[in-house]
């Protein structure tokens, strides 16, 4: 039996059901709307597990599910060395969102990471602490900033309404997910020209643990054939 983890609610779940449906595999919630059990039609040996998109990376890495649909950003954020623990089977073409760095529009002198780095150095000198960037994507942002050689910043945790942190003066800049940039503009923010950290979309992953049985490996082959992967 292969366990397939799918986000348990919202558009991500519906779009995932549509994606599998278009490829001949019917997924649906069984029982009442509140129940997180699912049914699979069109293929044997696959069990649907509905759970939060944010938990899917961890459950894949732990081997509690074998396949999972979640955002590529969540996998990179939640799993250290992610591609040793899971691998991508298919990019699904929906749930697109960019993880970006945004700064206030009034920073007319800052449009690139090079500017941000210079502004951070001056900010630390004048204000006595490191320029704060609010985010919930600590690993992705930190790795990106290290690669790009940006210094004198610090990350502050923000699990929601991140666009508002600058106005509230709990951060000077943000790193967050955006699909259209509308909310950013409405909050007086702009995206850095080279501030794209990761272009995320819904992705079908498989866990890379070695304890799969031969039957499970055969099952995956069949599933990939049906899905045309």
């Amino acid at each position, binding site marked *: 039996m292969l366990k397939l983890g799918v986000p348990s609610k919202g558009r991500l779940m519906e779009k995932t059901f549509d994606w599998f449906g278009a490829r001949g595999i019917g997924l649906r919630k069984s029982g009442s709307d509140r129940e997180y059990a699912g049914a699979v039609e069109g293929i044997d040996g696959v069990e649907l597990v509905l759970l939060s998109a944010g938990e899917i990376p961890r459950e894949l890495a732990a081997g509690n599910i074998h396949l999972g649909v979640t955002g590529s950003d969540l996998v990179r954020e939640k799993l250290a060395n992610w591609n040793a623990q899971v691998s991508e089977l298919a990019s699904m073409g929906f749930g697109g969102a960019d993880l970006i760095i945004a700064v206030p529009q009034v*920073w007319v002198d800052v449009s690139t990471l090079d500017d941000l780095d210079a502004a951070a150095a001056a900010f630390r000198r004048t204000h006595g602490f490191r320029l704060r960037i609010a985010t919930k994507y600590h690993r992705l942002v930190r790795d990106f900033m290290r690669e790009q050689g940006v210094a004198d910043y610090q990350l502050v945790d923000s699990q929601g309404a991140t666009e508002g942190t600058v106005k509230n003066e709990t951060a000077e800049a943000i790193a967050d997910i955006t699909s259209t940039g509308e909310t950013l503009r409405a909050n007086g923010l702009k995206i850095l020209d080279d501030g794209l950290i990761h272009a995320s979309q819904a992705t079908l992953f498989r866990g890379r643990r070695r304890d799969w049985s031969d039957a499970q490996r055969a099952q995956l082959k069949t599933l990939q054939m049906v899905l045309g992967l």
Partner: protein
Amino acid sequence: MPTSPETLTEARRLRDLFAAKGAQVFKADVLQPADTLLDLYGEDIRARAYLTTDPLRGEMVLRPDFTVPVVQMHMEAHADPARYTYAGKVFRKQETDETRANEYVQVGYEVFDGQNPAAADAEVFAAIAQGLAGLPVRAATGDIGVLMAAVRGLRTTDARKAALLRHIWRPSRFRALMKRFGSVKVTPARAALLAADDPFADAGPDIGLRSREDVIARIDALRADAAAPPIAAEEIALIDAILALRETAPNVLSALRDIAVDMPAISDAVSGMGARLEALADRGVDVATLEFEGSYGRTSLEYYDGFVFGFYATDRPDHPPVATGGRYDALTAQLGQGRAVPAVGGVIRPDLALGLLPC
């Protein structure tokens, strides 16, 4: 993982070896206040060290090395010169390679002595080499001081030199800055901003702590920078030449002497390197075969600003170094509250050293 009895025995042997050279034995708490490290390294330390919170003491860190506590203790003690040794576990997160240990024993030898820096460098290198005697290791060396002297000697503005010095340890940003300072090209958007009568014409609302004054100050700095001539191509080529050096130490020394003809600013650093090689030879180090790399020690999250070295298993170049060390004068200045003491030190990992013994 519990430390094996063999590793503990080896750690004690090394610590005794260093103590016999006149080093006081130093002990440090496993849990250290995190503020110093956060101040020194910022966000990067969170990826490398284990941080935790104490309800009364605030953010704490499982010591990622002994150097910072040793420097803090020494700067308070006001007793120069001094030598210290220690043996104990350090803790480092491993985000990419599960097979690398996240806690391991380090045995260190640190020398605070400004009398003769070349001799102190050689003393530490020789002590570490002696600790590893008989093992199949090769040494790599470098000197970040030469690169820093070269940057300080560039014929350009102090602001540009400060920006480059700030990124000595971040090679990609350093390269980007060199490229920018070496060119007169400005993007159309940047040119428009610098020429604008009111740079804030299309700006959004004033939000956040970085104020309009901060932005104006930076625009002024950008205007001053745009007015400065680019760093000459010959000077950039000299920096590139220093970074590309990779040869035996005597050959590098003669190459650097040639570079110093065109770039006199590095003369002192180059003579310092010459004096160090002599001091190393006096201590019996085979200088003729010693490797030297112009960019060695730049990519690690460290505080070295002069001589740097590492010892690697001869046939395992992919393994972490068995021993590392270097000079960290600037760290003592940062932690010394106005006082600075020239300092150099090195550490050995006894577990890795034992792994190199023939079975």
